[in-house]
C-alpha cells in the first residue's frame, strides 16, 4: 500500500516549523496540519526578548511568520485542518481529520503545543469576548483608557499586563499566591507601579456584570471578598497541553496530559514522535521548542532510514 507522506506534523508552532525546516531540507515529504494559526501561542505573544539571535527582541507575530516562510521555502506544506485521531496500521500511521479525511504517513510528529487554561469561575464563559479575553495582542486595543484586570502571576500574565498598559488607564494584576514571573519581568513590573497594581494572595472568584456589561471582578483576599471595578478581564493562568485528541490512542500521557517520550522523543506508538510544549517535562520556552523540533526531525530521519 502506498503511503501519502513521509512525515505528517500535527501543529505548526515553532517546534513543528523547525522540524519541517530540517526534514524538507533533506527532501523528506512533510505536511503540517494546523487547526488554528501558524506560529501557535508564540504568535500571540506581543514581544519575545529571550529568543537567541534577536539582540533587540522580536514581535511574536514576526517570529512566527519568519519560521513559516523558512519552512515553506524548503517545501513544507501547511494544511489548515484538524487531526481527530491517529492509529498504527501495518508499517505506517493512519490519521483522520475532523472532516473525516483519511491519510497516511511513515512517521508523525505531534507538536500541538498548549492553550491557555480557563479559570472556571462564574461569568467567564458568559462574557467571553465581551469583557473576558485570553489574547492581549488581539483584544487589548478595545480597552483604551479603561480599567482592566489581568489574572495570573506567571510570565505570560506579567508580560501581557505590561503590554496592556499601552491601552488601559490602569491594570489590576490579580495573583492567587505569589508572583512566579522571571526576575527581568518583575523588575519591569516594578517600574510600572503607577499603572499596574499587583494584588498578591488574591483569588478571582467571579466576573461581575451589570446590565449584561462587565463591570468588575469579585476577589477574595484572606477572609474578605470584594469587587474590583474593571471593564475587562484578561486571563493567563497557565497552559493545558493540546492532547485531548490522543485519549483513545496507546500514546502515554503524564498526569498533566503531556506526552511521554523516550530519549529519542518517540512516544509509546512506534513512529510517532512528540516535541515542544506538548511533550512531558518540556520547559515551555520557544527556544527549547525549537531545539526539540530539530532533535525530533533528526530522530525521524533515522527512523525513516531504518524502515
Amino acid at each position: 500500500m502506498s503511503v501519502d507522506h513521509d512525515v505528517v506534523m500535527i501543529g505548526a508552532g515553532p517546534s513543528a516549523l523547525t522540524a519541517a525546516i530540517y526534514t524538507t531540507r533533506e527532501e523528506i515529504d512533510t505536511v503540517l496540519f494546523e487547526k488554528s494559526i501558524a506560529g501557535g501561542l508564540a504568535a500571540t505573544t506581543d514581544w519575545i526578548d529571550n529568543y537567541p539571535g534577536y539582540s533587540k527582541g522580536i514581535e511574536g507575530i514576526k517570529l512566527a511568520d519568519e519560521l513559516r516562510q523558512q519552512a515553506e521555502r524548503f517545501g513544507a506544506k501547511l494544511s489548515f485542518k484538524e487531526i481527530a485521531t491517529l492509529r498504527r496500521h501495518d508499517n505506517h500511521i493512519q490519521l483522520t481529520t475532523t472532516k473525516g479525511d483519511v491519510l497516511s504517513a511513515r512517521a508523525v510528529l505531534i507538536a500541538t503545543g498548549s492553550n491557555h487554561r480557563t479559570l472556571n469561575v462564574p461569568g467567564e464563559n458568559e462574557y467571553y469576548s465581551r469583557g473576558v479575553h485570553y489574547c492581549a495582542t488581539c483584544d487589548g486595543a478595545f480597552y483604551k483608557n479603561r480599567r482592566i484586570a489581568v489574572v495570573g502571576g506567571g510570565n505570560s500574565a506579567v508580560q501581557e499586563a505590561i503590554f496592556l498598559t499601552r491601552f488601559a488607564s490602569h491594570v489590576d494584576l490579580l495573583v492567587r499566591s505569589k508572583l512566579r514571573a522571571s526576575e527581568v519581568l518583575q523588575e519591569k513590573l516594578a517600574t510600572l507601579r503607577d499603572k499596574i497594581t499587583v494584588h498578591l494572595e488574591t483569588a478571582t472568584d467571579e466576573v461581575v456584570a451589570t446590565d449584561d456589561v462587565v463591570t468588575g471582578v469579585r476577589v477574595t483576599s484572606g477572609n474578605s471578598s470584594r469587587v474590583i471595578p474593571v471593564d475587562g478581564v484578561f486571563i493567563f493562568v497557565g497552559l493545558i497541553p493540546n492532547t485531548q485528541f490522543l485519549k483513545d490512542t496507546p500514546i502515554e500521557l503524564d498526569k498533566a496530559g503531556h506526552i511521554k517520550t523516550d530519549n529519542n522523543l518517540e512516544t509509546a506508538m512506534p513512529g510517532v514522535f512528540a516535541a515542544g510544549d506538548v511533550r512531558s517535562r518540556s520547559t515551555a520556552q520557544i527556544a527549547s521548542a525549537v531545539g526539540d523540533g530539530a532533535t525530533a526531525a533528526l530522530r525521524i530521519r533515522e527512523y525513516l532510514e531504518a524502515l
Partner: protein
Amino acid sequence: MKITVYSTQTCPFCVQLKQWLDKKGYEYTDYSVDKNPYAAQIMIRQSGQMGVPFTTIEHEDGTLDKILGFDRKKLATILES
C-alpha cells in the same frame, strides 16, 4: 460583494486572515480598530463583542454575513458560494 475586516495590528489571527484573503485574491477594506475608535464602535455594534478579527461580507442582495475569528471554513463557504 463587499468584504470588511476589523483587525488590530498586533493580532496574529488578523494578519493571517488578511494573508489568506490576499492569497485567494479577494479585495477587502481593513479597519484597524486600534487606530480607529470610530471603526471599533461600529464593529462592537455589529458584532456585539470585542474580539478580532471580525469580518463582514455584504452581498449584492443586501444580506450581510458576519464572521468572528479567523474561521477559514466559514469564510470559504460564504465567499465561494
